[in-house]
């Protein structure tokens, strides 16, 4: 032993051994503590714990929170929660699953009901205590059968699941969206940790946009169950926190009117209050029934929705990108006025066509408008006038003013899936097509045709800015968030994007021209003329394909897909406008004949019914 000590060179081996002894003590004491603790748990309190483990089986159960309700501005419920019932079986408690299922079928048969669940699939290995779903979303009748016979049906449990009830069905589909089981992508990308697999989350519309507020916080229960798997009591409980309620700016009455007005068409109607940008109605047709998604949509229904050529799932109002056509002339006129290129009085001669190089561009009016200045050019939507001033303004300035009116950028409405449209520029064309910009394309752009694209919401918002004297608001559809007990959580105030780059004087000139389009003899929007209020508006007819111009092909003879889109944008009254409406009818034909009458219905019921009711 002495020899080895010397080998620990440089260190005093005695020290090292003393320290080892110290650690020996530490280790002994530590392990003794563990032993004492084991003795305490296993020997002294062993019986207590043994009883708890044998008699009580405590398990954890998740309690899902209720999603928040959604209301319209008048306090009408748009989305509520209702109960849906599932029947499950716990194999361990049932002992013989097949015979229990057989008994259920027998009980159903007595009442002439059919068992809708499939066969109970049991894999090679299974968890005896994990319930197997037998039937989903059962009727009240079946529920009462299962409940009253529960003593004969060991292991059978009924789960209550809250599901969404969309009271307005299709009418509000695109605004509200729908809920569905969380996707694995979303689950993986989620960093907040608030989601679990199997959770129902908002997939579209407000349900998606405000999901983190609406969903609430899950709670849980520590449940004591007996040997048969029945619950004895809830030992500990953490209550779920229901989600926030949402109040929208939508007026469900107006929404209904707009829905009916668009009957039988494919398209979109938006109604906005130009004073603050709040959306009063937003209707898209065709639509879908969000209630179908509640307990998982059937394959069949899903395929139907996806394969429908009219795309019922699309929220056209914010994600449909259309050629603005003549509605865009307003912006062209604004640009020309602001840049000082024209005066309101300056006139051009329209003989029905306009020559650029060896190309001829036509006016929609065959014989032409004759000598025409700004006011009439807008009111009667003269194309030749705009070909002329479009050339003067040029593509760069047109792009500048388009952006100034909010085109080419998302408006920022509180809904998911908004598209930004397209404002073409020379550089964009070069990047996109590797070809330089042609002058003829400026000519097309001057009447809102060609590359330019805008969503109905963007168009309407641009007109709203004109209506309110120049302020471009963020369209908002959410008014406020409230906690489940009604405390206001967040008020969504109107937000300003910018001011349109147009002087007050020119705004008046343009508004006057829009007034003329509705109220003057040759105006294109005469369908909107009302005695009581002055409506201002602009029609648009967007070419889907370049059909031979001037030939009077009967609309019915053109295949549906090739017909023009009909557009109409308007606001009223002339002074202190309080309502603005945009209508897009896909393949509807002329703006004045297809879209304007729809806007008329909405303006009429707003002033005749809604406004009067509100004022009472």
């Amino acid at each position, binding site marked *: 032993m002495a020899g080895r000590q010397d080998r*620990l060179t440089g260190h005093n081996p005695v020290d*090292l051994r003393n320290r080892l002894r110290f650690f020996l003590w530490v*280790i002994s004491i530590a*392990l003794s*503590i563990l032993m004492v*603790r084991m003795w305490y748990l296993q*020997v002294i309190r062993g019986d207590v714990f043994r009883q708890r483990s*044998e008699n009580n089986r405590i398990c954890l159960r998740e309690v899902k929170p209720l999603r928040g309700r959604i209301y319209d501005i008048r306090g009408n419920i748009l989305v509520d929660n209702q109960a849906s019932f599932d029947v499950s079986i716990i194999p361990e408690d049932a002992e013989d699953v097949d015979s229990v299922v057989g008994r259920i079928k027998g009980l159903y048969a007595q009442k002439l009901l059919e068992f809708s669940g499939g066969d109970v699939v049991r894999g090679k290995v299974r968890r005896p205590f994990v319930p197997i779903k037998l039937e989903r979303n059962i009727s009240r009748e079946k529920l009462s059968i299962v409940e009253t016979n529960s003593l004969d049906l060991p292991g059978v449990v009924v789960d209550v699941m809250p599901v969404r009830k969309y009271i307005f069905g299709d009418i509000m589909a695109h605004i509200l969206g729908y809920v569905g089981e969380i996707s694995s992508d979303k689950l993986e990308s989620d960093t907040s940790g608030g989601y679990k697999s199997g959770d129902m989350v908002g997939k579209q519309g407000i349900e998606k946009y405000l999901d983190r507020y609406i969903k609430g916080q899950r709670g849980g229960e*520590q449940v004591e169950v007996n040997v048969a798997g029945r619950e004895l009591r809830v030992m500990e409980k*953490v209550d779920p926190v229901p989600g926030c309620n949402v109040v929208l700016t939508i007026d469900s009455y107006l929404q209904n009117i707009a829905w009916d007005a668009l009957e039988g068409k494919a398209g979109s109607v938006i109604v906005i209050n130009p004073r603050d940008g709040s959306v009063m109605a937003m209707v898209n047709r065709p639509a879908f029934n969000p209630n179908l998604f509640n307990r998982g949509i059937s394959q069949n229904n899903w395929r139907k929705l996806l394969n429908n050529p009219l795309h019922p799932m699309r929220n056209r109002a914010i994600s449909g990108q259309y050629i603005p056509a003549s509605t865009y002339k307003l912006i062209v006129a604004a640009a020309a006025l602001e840049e000082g290129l024209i005066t309101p009085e300056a006139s051009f001669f329209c003989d029905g066509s306009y020559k650029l190089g060896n190309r001829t561009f036509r006016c929609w009016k065959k014989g032409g408008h004759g000598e025409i200045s700004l006011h009439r050019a807008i009111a009667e939507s003269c194309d030749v006038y705009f070909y002329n001033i479009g050339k003067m303004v040029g593509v760069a300035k047109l792009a500048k003013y388009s952006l100034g009116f909010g085109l080419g950028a998302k408006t920022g409405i509180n809904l998911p899936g908004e598209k930004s449209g397209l404002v073409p520029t020379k550089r964009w064309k070069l990047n996109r097509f590797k070809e330089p910009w042609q002058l003829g394309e400026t000519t097309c752009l001057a009447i809102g045709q060609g590359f330019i694209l805008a969503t109905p919401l963007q168009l309407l918002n641009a007109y709203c800015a004109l209506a309110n004297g120049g302020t471009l608001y963020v369209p908002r559809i959410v008014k406020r968030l409230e906690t489940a007990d009604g405390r206001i959580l967040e008020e969504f105030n109107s937000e300003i994007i910018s001011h349109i780059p147009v002087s007050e004087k020119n705004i008046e000139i343009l508004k006057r021209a829009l007034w003329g389009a509705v109220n003057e003899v040759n105006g294109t929007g005469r369908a909107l003329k009302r005695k009581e209020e002055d409506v201002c508006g602009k029609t648009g007819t967007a070419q889907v394909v370049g059909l031979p111009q001037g030939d009077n092909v009967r609309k019915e003879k053109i295949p549906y897909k090739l017909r023009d889109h009909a557009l109409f944008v308007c606001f009223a009254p002339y002074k202190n406008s309080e309502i603005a409406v945009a209508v897009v009818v896909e393949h509807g034909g002329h703006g004045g004949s297809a879209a304007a009458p729809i806007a008329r219905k909405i303006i009429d019921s707003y002033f005749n019914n809604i406004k009067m009711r509100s004022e009472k």
Partner: protein
Amino acid sequence: MKFDRRLLFGFDWVLLSLVLLISSIGILNLYSSGYSLADLDGASLYVKQVYWVLIGLVFMVICFCIDYRFICRYAYVIYAFSILLLLLVFFYGNTVNGSKRWLAVCGISFQASEFVKLTVILALAKYFDNNKIDGGYNLKELLLPFLTVLVPFILIWKQPDLGTALILIILFLSMAVFAGVRRYSIISTAICGVVLLPLCWNFLTEYQKERILIWINPERDPLGAGYHVIQSKIAIGSGGIFGKGFLEGTQTQLKFLPEQQTDFVFSVFAEEWGFLGCVVLVVMFLALILWGLSISRHSRDLLGALIAFGITILVFWEIFVNIGMVLGIFPVVGLPLPFLSYGGSSMIILMAGIGLLMNVSMRRFILQP
């Protein structure tokens, strides 16, 4: 290297037997814990663990074949490599259960933090061996070895893996004390520690704070971490003196126990084998630790003594903290129980560590060339 027959003579059969015995208990226990588990992979977890033990044995052989003095020549390089791995985890690691611990290479994922435990021991051993000081180190001289531990500590803390991070600190303190620290340094560190401890609270995440509050009062979160502790206590307590018997643990078999194959594996054992089984297991652990300390004591040089001590004390602290946590003495920090918890990385690293112990042990009779 010429083969020295004394190596064979010195081979540590006792250590090997102890390790194999405890590992076998671990596998048997895993078999029971996965016995009725429905998951397909759950049932075969014990089979996987057998593979891990076998792979671990290969690493063990590698680790005792090469003279530890030769290994320690590269101790700092190995240490740097392990830190690099940790950094990779930090930036590219896979997230499991909310913490980023895993590094996947060629489809095999492993926990770099396990590897770091060994490399830190080697690096510290080399440092203390190179810088021998009579009468013990003072705080200034301990700064560099402390930094050696601090870097991986922060990286692991950030994963977050509180258990492993704290073990590193305890490991450092133990090795420093073993290497010798001046008395006044120990006292001043202890005072600082007591004063600064409350400040550490601020560095904990909400989750970690919650764990500590739950430890004080398990009823605080009866559905979350508190549930683990409550169920674990029920499982252990209900084992009584003699246990419920192999494959008979109701808490285990009914899956009331969370993490019962990893961090809470001891409660499975305690439920089925009772107090007597636990005593036997603890005695076996104690035998292993004592044997390790005796290897350290009889090592031919300081380097060997430090390595042997480091590995032994690491195993001890892991055992103590894990069982203490499962028994509800400590907050739930998440640390595997050596040789019993399921886990490839930890098993392989443990075996490699045991290999190093054997390395020191079998070369104790060979004089320095």
